[in-house]
């Protein structure tokens, strides 16, 4: 990859960072436009695999960005896409959290916390719903429902649930 292309990639991810409300996955369509259609650094299969790998691997899903960068241009590519997607948003989050915490007793901030609480919780349900609905089939839905109830009502270790889900899938039941 030329230095010029590298700067273009880094710059584009810096911009996408500030647009990624709801997580980096929300700007994935634009990443596809740039990496696959415009710059031709990845093909469709590589692009989709990056997202699948990061979702299956432990850790934050934003790491799919590093998997894309790596497939496009090795370790340097991973460093530039990941640094690009993280730097603006983390700087903003850091500043906003300090600003908000220092003024947490003001009416506006109390109203923000109270008003956003039901939205945050509903957004979690929506996220789980969308993730599960990507794959059709009643066994898949049943597995999702069982995991939800176990997390809600019991203290079964989360890794045990993930392992059982993986086993059921490997056996071809899902």
């Amino acid at each position: 990859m030329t230095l010029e292309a590298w700067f273009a990639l880094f710059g584009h991810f810096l911009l996408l960072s500030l647009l990624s409300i709801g997580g980096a996955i929300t700007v994935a369509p634009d990443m596809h436009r740039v990496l696959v259609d415009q710059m031709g650094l990845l093909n469709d299969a590589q692009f989709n695999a990056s997202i699948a790998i990061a979702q299956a691997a432990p850790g934050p899903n934003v790491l799919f960005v590093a998997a894309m960068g790596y497939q496009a241009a090795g370790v340097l590519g991973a460093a530039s896409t990941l640094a690009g997607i993280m730097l603006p948003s983390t700087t903003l989050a850091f500043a906003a959290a300090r600003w908000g915490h220092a003024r947490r007793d003001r009416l506006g901030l109390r109203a923000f916390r109270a008003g956003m609480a039901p939205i945050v919780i509903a957004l979690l349900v929506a996220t789980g719903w969308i993730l599960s609905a990507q794959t059709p089939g009643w066994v898949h839905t049943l597995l999702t429902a069982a995991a939800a109830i176990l997390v809600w009502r019991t203290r079964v270790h989360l890794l045990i649930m993930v392992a059982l889900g993986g086993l059921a899938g490997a056996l071809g039941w899902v």
Partner: protein
Amino acid sequence: MSEPAAGAGRVGAANESTLAVPASNKDLFVTFTFLALQGFGGVLAVAQRVLCEQKRWLSKEQFVDILALAQVLPGPNVCNVALMIGDRFSGWRGAFSALAGMMSVPLVVVLILTVLYAQYSGFPMVAGALKGMGAVSAGMIIGTALKLAPTLKQNPLGVPACAGIGGAMFVCVALLRWPLVWVLLALGVLACAAAARRLKQAHQVSPSP
């Protein structure tokens, strides 16, 4: 993992008085590393369990507060959460430690898997296992939401209004698939304005905070 004091409630109902703090920045780094490594298909469910129930660094209410800000701001939610919690406990060094813990080791894992994937992606068992794990991680996020829902009982908006706002959010995002930014903006402004009105009314009735 140290057990909470007797009678503190086994299913993680941390009162603000029984909360602990991280021992050091290293503690933040290590805790977030282990937390991230348990988070297959997303870290939020593990984060809630580890931070509120095992470590007891935050109450459920504090977790929801931090998550609210993390979700309306751009960037990966769990990374914003790590950053904010680290900063709350020990400034920018804490923020950096928590975020580095969340990302460093998982990054290495993802890069290794990226290299391996090309070789094993053809195996149906691998694809099947990924599907099963995906189903479980989706359920874990929903379960976390159900666990956090009781915090809404203390919400100044009242339970019916919370249910209405939450229901509308779910319908717009999950069923209608409208763009998150606009839904968040419209419902967020509405909900915050309603909350401000309720808080003002409550303030006029009883001036003590």
